């Protein structure tokens, strides 16, 4: 069964006609062509698919867009201010906190919420905010450093 959904993503309104059971992850990637959001399990286990809904991190592989109409959805494509990267993006790129880069969009979004609520987080707060994001490449050390450095910019 298909339905029309009204979604607001990265400040832009979209009308999409999709199957009702589709997850937010699928609608973002397949119907809105916003493929920046990635996925590693589609079972809520890896954090790769993290996007923001009204500023709070949400696992898009578990979220149903039909319940998110009228809410403000933000993906990695909405993180930069036009051509100016978000300080988190700059820090991750400059320090090599993205290696293969596949987990990076999810990590960036979870980090953004942290910094929005708490511009100068402690290390434990960084740990806590990113405890649900699996990264298989970096060993997390550079992720730590990048989030902290972004908080100083």
């Amino acid at each position, binding site marked *: 069964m298909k339905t029309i959904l009204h979604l607001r993503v990265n400040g832009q309104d979209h009308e999409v006609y999709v199957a009702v*059971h589709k997850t937010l992850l699928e609608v973002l990637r397949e119907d809105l*062509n*916003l*493929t*920046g*959001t*990635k*996925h*590693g*399990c589609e*079972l809520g*286990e*890896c954090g*790769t698919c993290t996007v923001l809904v009204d500023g709070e991190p949400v696992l898009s592989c578990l979220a149903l867009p039909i319940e998110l109409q009228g809410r403000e959805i933000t*993906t*990695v*494509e909405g*993180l*930069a201010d036009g051509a*100016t*990267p978000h*300080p*988190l*993006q*700059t*820090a*991750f*790129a*400059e*320090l*090599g906190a*993205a*290696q*293969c*880069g*596949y*987990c*990076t*969009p999810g990590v*960036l979004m979870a980090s953004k919420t942290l910094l929005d609520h708490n511009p100068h987080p402690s*290390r434990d707060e*960084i*740990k806590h905010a*990113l*405890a649900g*994001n*699996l*990264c*298989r*490449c*970096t*060993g*997390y*050390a*550079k992720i*730590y*450093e990048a989030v*902290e*450095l972004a908080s100083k*910019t």
Partner: protein
Amino acid sequence: MPAAKSYVTPLDYEKMTPEEREWAVLTGRADLDRAMKEGTPRSTTPPASPPAQPSADYAVVGKPQKDLEGYRIVTGKSTFTVDVYLPDMLYVRVLRSPLPHAKITSIDTSKAAALPGVYGIITYKDIPAQVLAGLKPVMASEPALVGDPIAAVAAVDETVAEDALNLINVQYQQLPFIVDPIAGAKSGAPLALSNLQSNVSGPDFKVVRGDVNQGFASADVTVEHTVNTQDQQHVALEPHIAVARWDNDVLTMWTSSQYTHAIARIVAATLGMPYSKVRVISAFTGGGFGDKTAVYPYHLVAALLAKKTMRPVRYELTRLDVFYEGSHHFQVVQDIKLGFKKDGTLVALQADSTARLGAYSRGSGLAGDTLSGARLEYNIPNILLNGRGVITNTSSAGARRSVGEASGMFALETLMDVAAEKLGMDPVDLRLKNINETGDPESKLPWTSNGLRDCITNGASAFNWKSRWQGWANVNKGAGPLKTGVGFMALASNKGSKSPPMTAVVEINVDGSVRVVQGAAHIGGPQRTTFAIIAAETLGANLDQLSVSEPDTAFTTDTGIVAGSRATKSVGSAVKAAAEDARAQLLGYAAAKFSKDLSRTVNPQDLAVTNGQISLQTDSSVKPITFADAVNSGFIIVDGQQVPAAATIIGRAVVPPVTQYAQQTYAAAFYEVQVNVQTGVVRVTDAMQIHDVGKVINPLQLTNQVHGGSVQGTGFALTEDYIYDTATGIPVSSNLDDYKMLMINDVPKITALFVESNDAVGPFGAKGIGEPAFMAAAAAISNAIYYAAGIRLTSLPMNPKRVLEALKA
């Protein structure tokens, strides 16, 4: 996009708070700072070639460089294969065997085929018996593991494909199965596949050196143990995927791969097509760790269904599919015995290795790989090594960050620790006494370089080993439930070698910009940045003149696999050779230009290139010219003659294999652990790895490789375990919750240090890092656990259950 500011500038410790200093250490920033300020120590072991050039001599090499692709990645613009959606595309789902071993007695797909939205189905009946993905059936008629593919459906979307699977009726005749390799090797064991004579595959791996019996007879001290290491999964975060499209008789396949050219070659051979008519693309690869090196059934499923339906087809494996169909770091059971003289001199080694191959790996090569480090790390006059592979009804064994060496190193380096205690020696001194600094005793070839001694001694002093390790009398001396201890291991690895195919092209364009054409995967190294650095340094170009091609077999040469820690050394060698060819031509153009402008003969050898400027060394009053000036001169000087030339330079290289040297990488590792003797939980609290990297090309990214490797190696040591239920053959930890990997809150301080030994054949003397960083963990952690709590753990992972059992024993 321009950087807002550079973060990689030297630290000012004076101005930093104690907390900031601690933070710099924790994040590895202090290591980088030290490397930038002091350079990397050079090996003191006499190398095969002169000592490495100090980095100060180089413009680009040895300086921290960010990934050229970094901004594309962080803005979500890097195209992974999962991001490939084509018009009119069909989606695939695969029905997989619920049984570990069975014969299909009937299969009926008619109801599924009638479902609206289904466009194609394949089962074993559609695929000729000789069409295999490597050794795996594309679709099984005799499934030999839980998860073997039985039927694949292409439909308008994944939901319809999934629904169709439920309509397929399969009848199985269950057959006996075997999961355990030791039981499987015994005669009379159930056969993993009905066409086998025995589960033991091929002739045994065997190495004989000297006389092992005499060796042990002459030994004063003998130690031995049996070690059991587990199946480990790669969990590259991007799932395995292939998107296939036929354009008449040309097949284009996008796939998340470590080696596009091999995929193209093998898919072509399997389908009976010319290699040139299969194009494979893999712009960005979301992790691989060895699991994306081969052709799998899913590649052929996508190709065959796309052909059958004549529509583009996308098959993205679910995480569960990846666990089933992907290859695994295989279980190995090793018996190992060492003999020493009283003074610690090694005189004998005997080791026997049994590797679980799963259903579709073959031979004793994987078992042999587990024994490589033991054969080569130390001088041992008498050796007997035996290894075998055993076919089982489990997922196939394959390449996994070190292949078998991590297991072999765990067995050897934990036993060296046992020996050190029995000999009453400092474990560091025992290693130093026995290092094989000469070469491979079997091939008689010398090492390209060997910096192991410096890795050990520099590490011992940086870690403060002499005061943190307080002799064998102080094992298990901590009070209270949290016990702390330190452990050490040394490491020799056959990975990181320079090996073919090594081809590359370096173009200098009409505007002076430079393009490196190569086909190696970008998977986090960051490989393209490494190649840009090597080409820029060789040419004397600025890094921002460079661009590096993405892997696409239609446009790039076969640069070889990004695996075996070989990208920097092998692909880097090809890029360097191609850049040298381009540079020679560039100087010919520039000499023609100078000759014309100055109206006198200028020879290419009179010219120097730095920072993208070509200057006349013999006359500093002459204004330097740019690459663009040179290539546009219209002439090139070849053998002293001016000949007309087009304004494009193509440098090319096909690098031959290395035959005069044996190649190894080396490392030492020092770990501190905290063992909770009430809960059995082990935490790593401090980790230090020291690697002989030959030459540091990019200290920023090198440090990052050590961080990632150390954390994966710690997961191998402590938590990761792909477990089969032996009663049913079903894997029970095939999801990312039960398959436990380290997360950000499990990560200790990790220190990465390097030694430059100037490898005789690597580009600028460099060798690899990816796998050694992973291997330099488990044995040091086990040795540290012993020092902390007095228990020797010889099975991996060293999880709370095993710790508590050992404490009770």
